[in-house]
């Protein structure tokens, strides 16, 4: 057996698709060219699809993976317990945090006994893959459909807790990112200590 491939079909479903013979009409250029003019002209009068971006916006998908949010629970306590799973699962190594022990008087600030005293995401490193959201066992970090805006300084892209934690009065709804089972589970009053 030599280099020569089997000219017969390997798959039994072969179909030659390129036809290189030109008919006379194709030889004289004009019919195809005029046909092309027709196509472009039909688009000339079509409604334009352009989105005038800064003024008009297109709604992003509800599950769009944009800027992160650190959630608070219903009582306004931060959910994050600084377990570090998000940092480990991050392929870009963009997340850093420092864990701290919750003090007595901070009961209304943090949900768990351990919390992140410093939580930073380097938004320039981040690739918005969503693995941190998946890794979080505490419903603390979610990606949202907000986008991170561009900036002039590289240093300004390290987002700390001031930017990541959702404000108490402006909650961000992330329920559409969760499965129906989780949503059902969260309604269960008996399990409320967990969710």
């Amino acid at each position: 057996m030599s280099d020569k491939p089997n000219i017969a079909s390997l798959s039994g479903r072969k179909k030659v698709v390129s036809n290189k013979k030109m008919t006379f009409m194709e030889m004289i250029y004009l019919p195809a060219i005029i046909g092309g003019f027709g196509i472009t002209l039909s688009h000339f009068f079509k409604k334009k699809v352009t989105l005038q971006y800064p003024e008009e916006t297109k709604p992003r998908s509800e599950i769009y993976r944009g800027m992160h949010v650190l959630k608070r629970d219903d009582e306004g306590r931060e959910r994050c317990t600084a377990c570090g799973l998000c940092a480990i699962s991050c392929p870009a190594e963009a997340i850093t945090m420092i864990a701290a022990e919750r003090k007595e008087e901070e009961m209304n600030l943090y949900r768990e006994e351990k919390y992140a005293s410093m939580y930073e995401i380097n938004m320039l490193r981040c690739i918005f893959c969503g693995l941190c959201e998946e890794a979080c066992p505490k419903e603390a970090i979610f990606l949202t459909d907000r986008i991170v805006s561009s900036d002039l300084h590289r240093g300004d892209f390290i987002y700390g807790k001031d930017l990541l934690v959702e404000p108490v009065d402006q909650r961000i709804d992330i329920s559409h990112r969760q499965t129906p089972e989780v949503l059902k589970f969260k309604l269960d009053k008996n399990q409320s200590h967990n969710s």
Partner: protein
Amino acid sequence: MSQYNRVDPPEGYSAPGFFATTLDKVVGLARKNSIWPLPFATSCCGIEFMATMGANYDLARFGSERLSFSPRQADLLMVMGTIAKKMGPIVNQVYEQMAEPRWVLAVGACASSGGIFDTYSVLQGIDKVVPVDVYVPGCPPRPEQILDGFMKIQELVGNESLRRRYSPEYRELLEKYGIK
């Protein structure tokens, strides 16, 4: 961290009582609306840039659909995608070849910081080789984000004094990158 990132705004621009001369304003306005980008697209972000150029987002609205593949004619170097160490000197050279005034937009995580590719072969951000004016995060950024970054550049361009590009601060900045 940010000291080597960006050309600082012209002295006194933000100071109270400053106002640009009419010529400055007019030229700024003209430049702002006629930024011809040099798309330095190496990877994924380049495809999103195509989407930005495409019908749905249409960068042309800002007067920038004339891509200048020749650096001489370009005003804005848009670096999109990973820049490996092998590529670094070339980015520098392309920047050097551009005629003043010139701006640099780093699009996407890789160009801005190396992104996910913290490896021996990838440059950790193009600000190691050229001065960057605006960074656009995202991997790759949405066309909206690229447009956002572009408008930031426009803002910068419109507010810049005519002469700034010949100022000693600017020269000093370029010298840091070994650009004469």
